């Protein structure tokens, strides 16, 4: 990783030069000057990219994890790093374009600070840049007659541009990963030959190598012997078991949602009734996030128990079903919370409903983070103690990649929803993700053993990315869309006070711009892109195509025989190892 791109460029360059030379023997003299001029330009770029690679975040840590646990566990940490970069980027945008200008126009904060505020996000923080309600609706101008800063536009454009960039990044990385990993037909057949290229060269730790070899050995033995043939009654029984466990899992999800809904209604009463800062009401605020995190933490255990009960034919199948159930649970909990925020909190007679929503999300994020830490303590540390001393047959725990990635997706969804109501939330998530990275790393290296099954890492990564895009990101976009276009902002707080919707700020600005000829292009973009249905229609078609094309490839993969013949046709070609 350290030396790579630079090296390759250089290699190719050398090769090109040499082949050129061997073709033109007559220009031998000029070849020498060519050699002398050589690569001085490239050299500079090379050394730059070299240092860039050295600066790569956590290069060494990732290498150690890869060496001990292989690519599958590594993919979790890469995903975490990727999300962290998203949050750092968002934090930088929001901080520099929304928060810093606000500091200039800041009003004094006369609330007193209490320790519990850190946990609840209420009290002192209510009057800080953390929340929507604190931001001014004025245009800020320090120099008289100088140019001024429009807070409304800054707010809406920072958030908007961040989401556009997120959307494009997600879409492209997903499409790339799709086309790379899912266009290969015949993924089910040919397990035996796939063995040949399963060796993970990342694993360099001696113990880990031994363990991997052992696991591979047992896996081959199992594959060789396992022939699953079921009689009719067995099949019926299996189908019934599947149905029952689906009903059970969906039932739990619905029950969890109902619980969250009633708790949240209770939560609202707490907000509206009293504005006292006593300890009791503050602690009561924490009931909803703690209950949500508890549901999120314990129901997955039930689901994986169901998965064991069902005895799927392949471990891959089991993983996918469990992940589907978990994502249904998490997304429906987030969905019911969104319903509560947008339909009930927004319509309540509270002073500043946006800040209330921001606080709710803040609490959810913080409590979720603490549960994540507790999860590694109880799920991995205590589990190891038990597995090595009390109940030796259990052995060391394995790192549960699926559950951990889903937790990350859940946390990221909350952050995305919260950006509008609490612009600095990505900063908090940034801190919590970096802590999670270190805690998970230490816990992994101390407590866990390498996964026993061979994961199809590439496919799993693609599906995680897809999950982050489809229910999570698109859901967030619709929530943000409803908030910006449909809901009425609070009358007495926030940058959009007094407007009929947040979007009205943009349309008013465009009306002003129409008077200036110099900014006609902005008006044109507005009329033809942002306020035109046709544009959004075309956009969604493009997105669908991006997603569906690789799938179509996959479907057409049934004609794989043609592919094979094509390959056989290539047999007689000489290899071209380097280009």
């Amino acid at each position, binding site marked *: 990783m350290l030396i790579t791109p630079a090296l390759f460029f250089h290699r190719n360059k050398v090769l090109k030069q040499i082949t050129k030379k061997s073709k033109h023997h007559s220009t031998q003299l000029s070849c020498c000057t060519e050699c002398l001029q050589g690569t001085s330009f490239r050299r500079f770029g090379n050394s730059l990219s070299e240092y860039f690679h050295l600066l790569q975040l956590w290069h060494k840590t990732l290498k150690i994890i890869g060496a001990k646990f292989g690519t599958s566990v590594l993919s979790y940490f890469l995903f975490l790093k990727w999300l962290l970069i998203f949050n750092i980027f968002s934090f930088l945008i929001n901080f520099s374009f929304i928060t810093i200008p606000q500091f200039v126009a800041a009003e004094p904060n006369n609330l007193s600070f209490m320790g519990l505020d850190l946990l609840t996000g209420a009290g002192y923080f209510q009057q800080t840049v953390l929340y929507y309600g604190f931001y001014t609706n004025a245009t800020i101008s320090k120099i008289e007659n100088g140019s001024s800063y429009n807070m409304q536009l800054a707010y809406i454009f920072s958030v908007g541009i961040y989401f556009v960039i997120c959307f494009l990044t997600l879409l492209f990385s997903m499409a790339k990963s799709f086309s790379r990993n899912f266009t290969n037909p015949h993924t089910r057949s040919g397990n*035996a030959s796939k*063995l040949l290229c399963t060796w993970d060269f990342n694993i360099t730790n001696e113990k880990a190598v031994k363990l991997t070899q052992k696991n591979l050995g047992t896996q081959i033995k199992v594959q060789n012997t396992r022939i699953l043939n079921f009689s009719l009654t067995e099949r019926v029984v299996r189908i019934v078991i599947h149905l029952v466990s689906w009903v059970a899992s969906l039932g739990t999800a619905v029950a969890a949602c109902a619980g969250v809904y009633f708790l949240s209604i209770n939560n609202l009463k707490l907000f509206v009734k009293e504005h006292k800062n006593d300890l009791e009401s503050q602690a009561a605020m924490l009931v909803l996030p703690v209950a949500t995190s508890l549901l999120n933490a314990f129901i997955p255990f039930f689901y994986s128990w169901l998965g064991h009960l069902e005895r799927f034919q392949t471990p891959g199948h089991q993983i996918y079903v469990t992940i589907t159930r978990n994502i249904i649970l998490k997304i429906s909990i987030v969905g019911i919370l969104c319903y509560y925020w947008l339909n009930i909190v927004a319509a309540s007679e509270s002073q500043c409903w946006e800040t209330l929503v921001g606080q709710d999300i803040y609490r959810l994020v913080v409590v979720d983070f603490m549960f994540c830490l507790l999860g590694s303590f109880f799920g991995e540390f205590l589990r190891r103690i038990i597995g090595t001393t009390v109940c030796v047959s259990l052995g060391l725990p394995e790192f549960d990649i699926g559950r951990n990635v889903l937790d990350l997706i859940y946390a990221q969804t909350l952050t995305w929803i919260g950006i509008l109501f609490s612009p600095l939330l990505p900063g908090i998530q940034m801190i919590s993700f970096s802590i999670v990275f270190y805690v998970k790393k230490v816990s992994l290296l101390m407590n866990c053993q390498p996964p026993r099954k061979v994961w199809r890492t590439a496919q799993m990564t693609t599906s995680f990315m897809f999950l982050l895009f489809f229910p999570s990101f698109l859901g967030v976009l619709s929530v943000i869309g409803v908030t910006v276009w449909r809901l009425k902002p609070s009358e007495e707080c926030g940058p959009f006070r007094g407007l009929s919707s947040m979007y009205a700020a943009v349309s008013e600005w465009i009306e002003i711009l129409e008077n200036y000829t110099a900014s006609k292009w902005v008006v044109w973009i507005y009329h033809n892109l942002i306020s035109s249905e046709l544009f959004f229609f075309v956009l969604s078609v493009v997105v669908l195509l991006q997603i569906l094309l690789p799938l179509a490839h996959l479907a057409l993969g049934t004609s794989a025989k043609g592919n094979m013949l094509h390959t056989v046709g290539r047999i007689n070609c000489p290899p071209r190892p380097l280009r």
Partner: protein
Amino acid sequence: GDPPGPALRTAGRELWETGRPPRCSAGQSCLHCPCPEGCLLRPSRHRASLVLASSSAYKRFSELLPKEERENACSARVPKSQILTLPELRANPFQHRICWVFSTSDDRDDSMSFEDFLDMLSVFSDSATSDIKSYYAFRIFDFDDDGTLDRKDLEKLVNCLTGQGEESRLSNTEMEQLIRNILEESDIDKDGTINLAEFQHIVSRSPDFASSFKIVL
């Protein structure tokens, strides 16, 4: 083009031989570039840029050399025993094959020059294409260097994968069964061996290959 089969064995090696800037030492004539200035200047220049591009690789390489030879690490060769002390290779079950494939030593003692070392790192890097990776993986797995993976190669390969431990090692019948399965699935032209194209076909069906065939310094 080259005929298929045994010629594959040295194809990559030859490519490097022709693809490498000619090695010039005092009094030795150059292959492609007869003018003396070029011979004197070029190698050092190439090495300089390579070193710039890969200072960490260079540092790691020179650490393998005894202290007195570190000065001219670019022209020295590191013996195989030293190469295998690298933590990245120490536990790798394919360590001997990797040394063999990437070494260009004339004595066939698997020692590596700095350029061999760089070749190795670039093949195992992120930016190597899947074609290159699968080509070299094929050569690493081709234990007898005859250009195809026959039954003996496959047996050795599976033994490397499962290790020599009592419980993981496959019995003879299990090995037979596995190799039969592999050949059934992948030996498209039914000649009883797996050739490069067939191997690349297997690789194209395993998307994890690119990320797992990787060594990071």
